[in-house]
C-alpha cells in the first residue's frame, strides 16, 4: 500500500493534560482523510504536529518513509489552509499567492503563470490586485486555498477551513473542495468537528475523542457500523440502547427479541445496540410487527418527519419517516436484521483501585468514600461500582468529590453520563435525572447497590 504519511505511537501532552495518546494512523497517497471530533479532542494538535508547529512527545510521523520530527515547518513539503485564513493583510491577492513561490526563487514568468492558474481554479481570476481585507470570508478562504496549492505540496492540511462561513457558502465550498481534490490529486488531511462535512467530503474518516482515535473507516462504515456509543452518537442521529446478545444472530433490547446479522459475541453477553431513526419502519401487517408503540411527538423536518414514540415496554425511540403518524396513535413497528448494529460494551462497570482505611472507609480517587468492607486497613483493593450505584448531587458539598457532566448519552429509558472528576478521572453513571453538559455535581457512592470490593490482583 502506498502510504504517504504514517503516524506511529504518537503522544502529546500540554502540561498535565494528555492531548493525544498513542495515535496510529496512515494516509494513502491521494486520499481525502478527515480528522473528525468534538472541540478539544486533539485533532488540531495532530494536524499542527504534521505541519511542524508542534513537536510530538513520543512516536513518529513518517512522510514517504522519512521521519518528519526535527524538520522545521518551512522545510516540509506540505502546506496548510488555516481556520481563519491567515492571509497577509499588507499584501494584495497576487502577492499573497506568490509568497511561497517568490521565497523559492521561482522565475518571474512561471510565478505569473502558476498564480493565474490557481486563481482560475478557485474562480477568483479578476481579483489579483485586490486588497485581501476587502474580500468576503468565502473569497478570503479561496485565496488561502490558492496560496497553499500554488506550491504544489504533496499533502494539503486543512484546519476547519469552512468553519467561519455561513451554511449555504459552506455547502458550496464543500463541493468545490471535493472537486479540487479530484482535479489536483493532492493528498488532503482535513480537520473538522462537523460530522456532515466529514461524511460528504472524505474517503476516510478518523473519529477522535479525548485524545484517542475511536474509529477509522469510510464514511459508510463509520455511519453504519459505529464501534462504540461515542461514534454512534457523534455521527448522525441514533437510538443507542442496552441490549443482550442471546446467541449468534439474535439480540434482545427494549425487552423484545430481534434477529440481527452479528455473530461471534458469545451467548448472553451484554452489548450496546444502535438503530438509526430512519431504520425503524412502520407497518400495518400484524405478521411483520415486532413491537408496538404510541406516537408521542411528531415534527416536520423538511425532507422527513421526526417522531418520538413510547414502546409498549417503556422505552423512547426516535423514528424518521416520510409519512407523519398522528400524535397519540398506536403504531406497529419493525426493524430489519441488517439495520441493527451491535457493539461490544466498552465497560460493564466503573473499576477503581484504592486503599482500605478502616472497616467503613476506602480511599478512592484521592478521597475517602464511606464503603463498608471486611479488609484490613492498608489493603489495596479493586472496587467495581455499577453505573447505577453512583449518586450525583446538585449540592457539591453533599458529594465526597466534585465532577462535571462531560458527555450525555440517552439510552431509551435512562441517561448514561460520563463524569469528569476534578482530578481528571472519569466515572460513568446511569441515571433518570436530567443533567446538562458542563453541570457541576457532587459524587457519592451508594454502598448498598451492588458495589463489589475485592483484593487487588485477585
Amino acid at each position: 500500500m502506498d502510504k504517504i504519511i504514517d503516524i506511529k505511537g504518537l503522544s502529546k501532552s500540554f502540561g498535565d493534560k494528555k492531548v493525544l495518546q498513542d495515535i496510529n494512523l496512515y494516509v494513502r497517497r491521494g486520499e481525502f482523510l478527515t480528522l473528525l471530533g468534538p472541540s478539544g479532542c486533539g485533532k488540531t494538535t495532530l494536524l499542527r504536529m504534521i505541519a511542524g508547529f508542534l513537536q510530538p512527545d513520543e512516536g513518529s510521523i513518517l512522510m514517504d518513509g522519512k521521519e518528519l520530527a526535527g524538520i522545521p515547518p518551512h522545510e516540509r513539503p506540505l502546506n496548510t489552509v488555516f481556520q481563519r485564513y491567515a492571509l497577509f493583510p499588507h499584501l494584495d491577492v497576487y502577492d499573497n499567492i506568490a509568497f511561497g513561490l517568490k521565497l523559492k526563487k521561482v522565475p518571474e514568468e512561471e510565478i505569473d503563470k502558476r498564480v493565474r492558474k490557481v486563481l482560475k481554479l478557485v474562480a477568483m481570476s479578476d481579483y489579483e490586485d485586490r486588497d485581501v481585507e476587502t474580500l468576503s470570508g468565502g473569497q478570503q478562504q479561496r485565496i488561502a486555498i490558492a496560496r497553499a496549492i500554488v506550491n504544489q505540496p504533496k499533502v494539503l492540511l486543512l484546519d476547519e477551513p469552512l468553519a467561519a462561513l455561513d451554511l449555504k457558502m459552506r455547502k458550496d465550498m464543500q463541493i468545490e473542495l471535493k472537486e479540487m481534490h479530484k482535479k489536483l490529486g493532492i493528498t488532503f488531511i482535513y480537520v473538522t468537528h462537523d460530522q456532515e462535512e466529514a461524511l460528504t467530503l472524505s474517503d476516510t474518516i478518523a473519529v477522535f475523542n479525548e485524545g484517542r482515535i475511536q474509529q477509522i473507516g469510510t464514511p459508510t462504515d463509520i455511519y453504519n457500523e459505529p464501534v462504540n456509543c461515542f461514534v454512534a452518537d457523534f455521527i448522525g442521529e441514533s437510538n443507542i440502547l442496552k441490549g443482550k446478545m442471546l446467541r449468534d444472530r439474535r439480540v434482545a433490547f427494549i425487552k423484545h427479541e430481534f434477529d440481527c446479522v452479528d455473530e461471534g459475541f458469545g451467548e448472553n453477553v451484554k452489548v450496546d445496540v444502535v438503530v438509526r431513526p430512519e431504520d425503524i419502519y412502520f407497518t400495518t401487517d400484524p405478521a411483520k410487527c415486532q413491537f408496538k408503540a404510541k406516537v408521542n411527538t411528531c415534527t416536520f423536518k423538511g425532507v422527513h418527519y421526526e417522531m418520538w414514540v413510547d414502546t409498549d415496554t417503556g422505552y423512547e425511540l426516535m423514528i424518521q419517516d416520510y409519512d407523519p403518524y398522528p400524535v397519540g396513535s398506536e403504531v406497529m413497528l419493525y426493524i430489519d436484521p441488517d439495520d441493527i448494529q451491535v457493539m461490544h460494551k466498552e465497560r460493564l462497570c466503573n473499576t477503581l483501585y484504592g486503599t482500605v482505611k478502616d472497616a467503613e472507609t476506602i480511599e478512592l480517587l484521592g478521597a475517602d468514600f464511606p464503603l463498608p468492607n471486611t479488609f484490613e486497613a492498608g489493603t489495596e483493593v479493586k472496587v467495581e461500582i455499577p453505573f447505577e450505584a453512583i449518586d450525583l448531587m446538585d449540592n457539591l458539598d453533599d458529594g465526597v468529590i466534585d465532577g462535571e457532566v462531560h458527555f450525555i448519552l440517552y439510552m431509551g429509558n435512562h441517561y448514561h453520563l460520563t463524569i469528569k472528576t476534578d482530578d481528571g478521572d472519569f466515572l460513568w453513571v446511569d441515571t433518570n435525572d436530567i443533567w446538562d453538559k458542563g453541570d457541576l455535581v457532587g459524587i457519592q457512592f451508594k454502598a448498598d447497590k451492588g458495589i463489589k470490593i475485592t483484593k487487588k490482583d485477585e
Partner: protein
Amino acid sequence: MKKFFAKLYIWVLLVILYAPLVFIAVFSFTESKVLGSWEGFSPNLYRNLLTGQMQGNASLLAAVKNTLLIAVIAAAVSTLLGTVAAIGIHNMKGRAKKTVSFLNNIPMINPDIITGVSLFLLFVFLHFSQGYTTVILAHITFCTPYVVLSVLPKLQQMNPNIYEAALDLGATPAQALRKVLIPQLKPGMVSGFILAFTMSLDDFAVTFFTRGTIGLDTLSTYIYTDARKGGLTPELRPLMTLIFLVILILLIIINVRQDRLQKQNENR
C-alpha cells in the same frame, strides 16, 4: 445660557493653556533682551538661531544638536529593543506574561528623578565615565517600555496564524519576521518611535544625573543652567516656538494615522 457657559469654560481653559506658548511665539519676533518688552518686529532672532551668530551663549546650538542626536539614537534603539521584547512578551503564557508586562509598566510610573538618581548610582558603581554614552543608555532605558506598550496591541490584533502561515509557505523564521511580522507591526513601531523620541526630547531629570561633568548639555539642561545664570538667552524664544511647531506637527501626524487605521479596521 447653559450652552454659553459651557463654551466659555472651554475657551477660558484653552486660553490659559496656550497663553504661555502664544506669548513666547509673539516675543520671538522682537530683539529685546528681557522677556516682556516689545522693541519692534524683527526676525533677527530666527536668523541668529539659524546662522549660529548668537547674541547670547553660542553653546545653545550645540545643546540642540546633542538633544536631537540623543533622541534619534535612543528612539531608534528602543524601538528595536521594544519590538523584540513585545514579541517575546506576546509569546509568553499565563503568569510569566503577566509578571513581565507588570515589570515593563513600572519604569513608566516611576518618577523620572528616581530613574535618574538610580542610573547615576549604577554608572558610578560600574565605573562608567559619564557622558554621551551614559545619557543615551539612560534614555534607551526609559523609552523602551513605551515602545513595548505601543507594539503589544498590534500583536494582539494580529491573526495568530499569520507567522505560522509564512513558515508554512517556506519562509525561514528570519524571513517570516522580515516579510510578515514587521510589516504588520510597523504602525505600532512608528508610534513607539515617535513616543520615544518626544520622551527623550523633553527629559531633564534623567539627563541631568547621567551627563557627568564633561559639560554635555541638552536643551533642557542648557536652559536650566542658563536660567540660573540670570536671564534666558533671547534665541531660546524662536527655538521654543520651532520645537512647539514640530511637536504639533508630529501630534497631528499621529492622530491622522490613528484615524486612518481605525477607518481601515472598520472597513474590515
